[in-house]
Every structure is written in C-alpha cells, then in structure tokens.
C-alpha cells in the first residue's frame, strides 16, 4: 500500500527544519556540529540503502560519489566567492554537486551493473578509489593537500531538511508499484526480467539516484567542515556507510536511519576509549556479521507489512 500521507510528512519535516534553523544560534556549537554530521550520515545511509538494501546491488564505492558532489559544489563556491544570499545560492550549489555525482554514477553504473556479488563490490570499490586518486592529482581542487576555506553554508536546518527530503524520496519511490520493482530485482533478477521489469534499467536508476543524494551529502559536508581532503573519501569511508546500511537491516529505511544516527554518535560516546575506537568498530562489524547479519533493527521474517 502506498505510504499514506507521505507528502504531509515531507512538508512537516521541512517546516521543522526551518524552525530549527531559526533557533540554531542558541545551540551549543559542538552539539550543532554533531547534529549536522548525523543529518549527513542519514542522507548517505538512506541513499546507499536504495542501492544495496532495496535493490540488492553491493556497491562499495559510495564515498566516491560523495567526493564528487562535495568537491564540485565546494569548487563552485570558491570560484564564485562570498555570496550575499547564501540561502538562495547554497541549494543550487548542492544540486549541481548532486547532478554531477549522479552523472558519474551513470558512468560507473552502466558498465558495472552487469556484474554480480563479489565482482560488483570490487568494481565499485575500484571506481571509488579511482575517483579518489583523480581528485588527489587534480591541482584545481587542492590535490593531496586538500581544499580549504570553504564557506560555511551548511546549517542544521539544511542538513535536517535535506535528510527529510532524502528519506521522503527514497521511501516514496520504494513504496509504490513502480518502486516494488527495485525489491523484485533484489529478490530474483531472472524472475523480475521475465515479468516485464527491465533489470538493468532498474539497477542503474537505483545507482544514479543513490549517487545523486551522496553528492548532496558531499556538498553539505564540504560546507560544514570547510575543508576537504581526498583521504576522507577512501574505501574505509565507503565501508562506514555500508556498515550503517547493514546494521540497519539492509532495506529497512527506519532501521538504516537509526543505524546512521547510532554510528555517528558512537565515537562521541567512546571518547574515552579513543585509542580503541577503531578496534571496537572492526570487532563490531565482525560480531554483527556473525551474530545478527540481518541487522540490529530487523523484524523477524514471519510477518512483514506491505509497505
């Protein structure tokens, strides 16, 4: 059954975002930053969820699309210089980043999505790394030393609002007759093809959509941290996002959002154990796979609602 009143939730979420941004000056700078991180993580996880979770294509190069979007929108911001009305300019810059990222997603997706499982994972990993290396060698965006002094246009309002938009888009897509096609491709490609679903087109569509939002997340990130470095978008970052999707239950949007929040906040809680943070993280991945590969937030398979 199509998501009832989805548009209503969207408008509510955007209204809330606007409200929050009005008061954001009151919040603690630090916590504000973390909240923005959470918003960005939600966008990344939800967008990857469409590709990995719903459509079942194992992409390990999501960080590459984030890099493309981030660098492109940051580059435009720096080229244009200080802007009077950032609230008009910023969404356009983000959109541009998203579109370029989706274009790259198209270029990567079309050849790669013929492959399955392990092979697809490696090819997407490879593409992600190639993007990183290309950025690392491009003087125009700072090469290895990175891109500095990016203006701080990202506010909690933008991060939160765009997270809401992303969740709305992905959920609405999937919760429609059209969108059930994604899950059908995930379940059985051959059966899907035989029942009139163009599997290649479906996979590429998921890929390009996911890349678009990763690009937007990248743009938000760039104008938040105000500094971009190619090493921040390597395969480890891609794994970070993949872990969020798996932890959340590969396809369960609510679970993936929860996982994104949890994993972004976790380093904050583990402040005291900073030394062991990465070791704990690696152990978490292993234990998760061994004990609960369906994710922390998955409902037992017996009954699953139509949406």
């Amino acid at each position, binding site marked *: 059954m199509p998501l009832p009143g989805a548009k209503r939730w969207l408008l509510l979420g955007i209204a809330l975002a606007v409200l929050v941004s009005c008061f954001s000056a009151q919040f603690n700078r630090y916590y504000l930053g973390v909240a923005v991180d959470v918003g960005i993580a939600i966008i990344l996880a939800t967008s990857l969820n469409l590709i990995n979770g719903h459509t079942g294509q194992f992409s390990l190069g999501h960080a590459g699309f984030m890099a493309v979007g981030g660098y492109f929108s940051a580059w435009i911001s720096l080229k244009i210089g200080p802007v009077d009305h950032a609230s008009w300019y910023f969404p356009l810059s983000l959109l541009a980043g998203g579109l370029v990222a989706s274009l790259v997603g198209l270029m990567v997706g079309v050849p790669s999505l013929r492959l399955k499982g392990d092979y697809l994972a490696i090819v997407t990993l490879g593409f992600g790394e190639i993007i990183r290396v290309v950025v690392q060698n491009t003087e125009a965006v700072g090469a290895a030393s990175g891109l500095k002094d990016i203006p701080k246009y990202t506010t909690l309002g933008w991060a939160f609002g765009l997270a809401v938009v992303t969740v709305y*888009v992905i959920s609405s*897509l999937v919760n429609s007759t*059209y969108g059930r096609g994604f899950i059908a491709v995930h379940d059985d490609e051959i059966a*899907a093809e035989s029942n009139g*679903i163009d599997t290649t087109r479906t996979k590429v569509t998921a890929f390009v959509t996911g890349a678009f939002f990763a690009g937007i997340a990248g743009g938000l990130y760039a104008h938040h941290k105000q500094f971009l470095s190619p090493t921040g978008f390597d395969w480890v970052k891609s794994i970070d996002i993949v872990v969020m999707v798996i932890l959340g239950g590969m396809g369960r949007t609510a679970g993936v959002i929860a996982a994104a929040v949890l994993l972004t906040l976790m380093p904050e809680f583990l402040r005291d154990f900073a030394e062991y943070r990465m070791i704990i993280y690696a152990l978490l991945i292993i234990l998760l796979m061994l004990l609960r590969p369906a994710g922390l937030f998955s409902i037992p398979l017996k009954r699953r609602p139509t949406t």
Partner: protein
Amino acid sequence: MSAPLLDLQQATIKFGGLTAVSELTTSIGEGELVGLIGPNGAGKTTAFNMITGVYQPTSGHIRFAGKCTRGIKPSKLAALGIARTFQNIRLFGSLSVLDNIRVAARLHNKHGYTSALWRGKSWKSAEAETEKHALELLEIFDLAKDRDEMAKSLPYGDQRRLEIVRALATRPKLLLLDEPAAGMNPSEKDDLMKLIRFIKERYNLAVLLVEHDMKVVMGICERIAVLEYGRMIAEGTPKEIQRHPKVIEAYLGAAAVVS
C-alpha cells in the same frame, strides 16, 4: 489458417561444443494448449529460455505474434505477451503475496519514477486500480486471504499457484509453464489440471506446458511435442504420441518398442 502466435523455425542453440536444442520447428496458435515432453536433459527448459529471450538462438528463427524475437530482452518480450513460470519456483520472496502480483502488473502501469515522487491524483487512482485488479486475481485463485503474507512463507502448492497468478498479471497471450506439477500429490495435480484449463478458457491464452507427469500432459494437452537430446522426435495428439515408436524408445528403450 491464421498465423501462429508462436513460430519456431529451425531454432538451434549451442553452448560451446554442446548443442542443447537442435533445429526445433513447431508452432503454437492462439488459445492452443501444447505440451512439451521428453526425458531429462532433452532441452525443454532451454527451449523455454530461448522463447522467453533468456538465451539467444545460435541459428534459426523465433517469431511471436509475427515479430522476430531475436535480440529482444525478456522484459520486452513479457510486455509483448509472453509469460512464464520456472522449474524451481522463483517468487519475490521478500515481497508480500499482493506485491508479487502488483509488481508484475507494473508492466501495464503507466506511472513511473516521477509519478511515484509527486504522488498526484492520477497516480493515486492508478495505484488503487492496480491494487484492485491484483486483489481480484488473488480472489479468483483463492490466495486473497494471504495477501499480506511474505511470499516465501506460503506452502509449496500455494507458491506454485502464486507464480502462475503472477504470470497472469502481466496479461500474456502465451503462458509457458515449466513443470508446474513438480512435487504435487495426485489431488493437487487434479486441481492443477482444472486450473490450467480454467486459465486457458477465461483469459484466452495459448499455453505451452513442460511436464513430466504423463497423466497431466495427456489429460489436458491438445497437442504434444517430444524432445530427445535437443531434437524433436515426434509431434501430434496425445493418442498419437502414446503409440509413437520413437517416443516409446526414448522413454523406455528400444526393447520396449517391440512390445
């Protein structure tokens, strides 16, 4: 005599050195119920895969509704009116029973990506229509009560039936059934035979049936084609096939022909 719905002319498929199907020539007219039988490995499922576009014939022609099917993807052929079920049931396991039908009906649903996002009035009514038709189909085949169950949690016989109903949701002109009676007990097989006859009448389909159970095949097929090692060795009515020496030899060995 009207042009056949499905027409195979010398359709051959080779995998490396192995010729799986060799110069298959036969045709199926609208509304006909044809059986395809043969010992294991005779190439029956491979023939299905050729007809549905999963494999491309190495030589020969296949025409559906007058159109040559070479190079057309299975999803496009489904849109043209060829539907199938599989030897090993291939349902969309994580989707509900209702969604399995809905997603097959997607073929005839004009609303795509942008509509799903905008969620306007016409999209809403189209979605409601799709759901209504899906439920109707499920009702007819006594699966409506399970509409929200996950497809893979259904009992075996229901899963087989669901797969057939899903194929019907694509509004085919030709339905290919690959061993639909596999794993069924005699009373289930009787129900299956009734089901196939019912479908054929009600939806005016042509049906091509691959099946090992002779009672089923002889019971409902108007015509039968027999494959052995990829070649067609006989074609005719059930009575003719039962007495055909080549067929008896293929199944029971040369010695049996004598008796």
